[in-house]
């Protein structure tokens, strides 16, 4: 067993590059999904029926489709329409679009729970448009939604593992490769599990500090 871990240690470069890919992929798609979510949320809450129903259809649709299937569709299905993406781009696109729906729903919920008065006060003091959004609306919204967004980021990290099926060299793929070449399944995958756990603990620590920031301001 120790010998097995020794083999894993000797392959640490591969594992670390897998972890790096997982982290970069998750971070990029989380950021992109959040931005897309910000664009979607107004449509979701719109009083006009067309944008609202399109947005609602998209969000509900993504909620009902398994991510792995969606990733398959993006990678294997899009070429039927002439869009051929490599596995990295497919993975990024799939993760981003899928989670944009969840982010939009999270932001909508957080926005609905926000008190209106501070914003009215902001308008009364002369804030408008971008300034209003940046200084008055956004900070409390992010503080309130922080924990839920953090949970979604953990979800994104775990979804990224699915992309091993399209041969994206993330962490699970690296562990798989090590185990298939050296026959050290337990050592390889347990190490991957601990690395995922560590990554999630980092995200949870970040969420924790946002929660403390929020609590101090209550």
């Amino acid at each position: 067993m120790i010998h097995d871990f020794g083999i894993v240690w000797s392959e640490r470069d591969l594992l670390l590059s897998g972890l790096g890919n997982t982290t970069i992929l998750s971070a990029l798609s989380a950021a992109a999904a959040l931005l897309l979510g910000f664009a979607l949320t107004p449509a979701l809450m719109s009083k006009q029926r067309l944008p609202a129903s399109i947005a609602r259809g998209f969000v509900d649709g993504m909620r009902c489709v398994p991510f792995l299937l969606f990733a398959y569709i993006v990678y294997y299905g899009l070429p039927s329409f002439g869009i051929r993406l490599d596995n990295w781009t497919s993975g990024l696109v799939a993760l981003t679009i899928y989670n944009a729906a969840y982010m939009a729903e999270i932001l909508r919920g957080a926005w609905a729970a926000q008190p209106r008065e501070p914003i009215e006060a902001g308008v009364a003091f002369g804030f408008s448009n971008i300034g209003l959004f940046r200084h008055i609306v956004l900070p409390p919204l992010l503080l309130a939604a922080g924990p839920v967004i953090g949970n979604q980021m953990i979800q994104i990290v775990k979804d990224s593992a699915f992309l091993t099926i399209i041969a994206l060299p993330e962490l699970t793929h690296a562990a798989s490769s090590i185990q298939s070449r050296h026959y050290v399944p337990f050592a390889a995958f347990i190490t991957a599990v601990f690395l995922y756990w560590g990554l999630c603990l980092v995200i949870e620590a970040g969420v924790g500090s946002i929660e403390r920031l929020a609590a101090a301001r209550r």
Partner: protein
Amino acid sequence: MSGSDVLAILQGAVVTVTLSLAGILIGLPIGLALAVLRWADVPVIARAVAVYVSMLRATPLVTLLLLLFFALPNIGIEIDPISAAILALVMNTAAFNCEVWRAGLMNFPKDQYEAAQSVGMNAGLRFRRIVLPQIVRGCLPGLVNEMSLLIKVTPVLAVVGVVDITRAAVRIGAETYDPLPPFLVAVALYAPIVFALVSLQRWIERRQSKAEAAA
């Protein structure tokens, strides 16, 4: 896509539903047991459960499945894809269910529990007659949510060769060089199941908030 192709995907649906049900039905009580162990603060075991739940919630299902499928034979336990799949599903969903149950237990009103103590109910009676009937109601939305999430991760079982909806669709796509139609059929099978569960959850939540408002 021919009729027999559609049939193959439907057969995959049977597998998906069966394995999902197995995971849900086994994972619910195990999750409750884990939550009770933490709530009762059994020395050592409560900490072990906390660590287990934390790790399982952070582990991607595909990684867990590969770990079980390849590592168990290595230490002498032969395991077939279906058993590995069910084991992975149960381990995963039990950890998430544990947190849902635990939230219900921790939010349980202390004075109702003390009233049960004061009339001489022992721990077993208190839990069975007073705590459990009420937390089942409170935890239902979270548990149904977890059920819908479980169904959405079942495609991972294709990775170890279990022929569920996704693997059937992938195989047909590979054979016909036309991957999109079987994928869309797959979506058409998953979506109603998940949508039904999500709607059920929303209906339960609405009913409960109405009941609370009326009280």
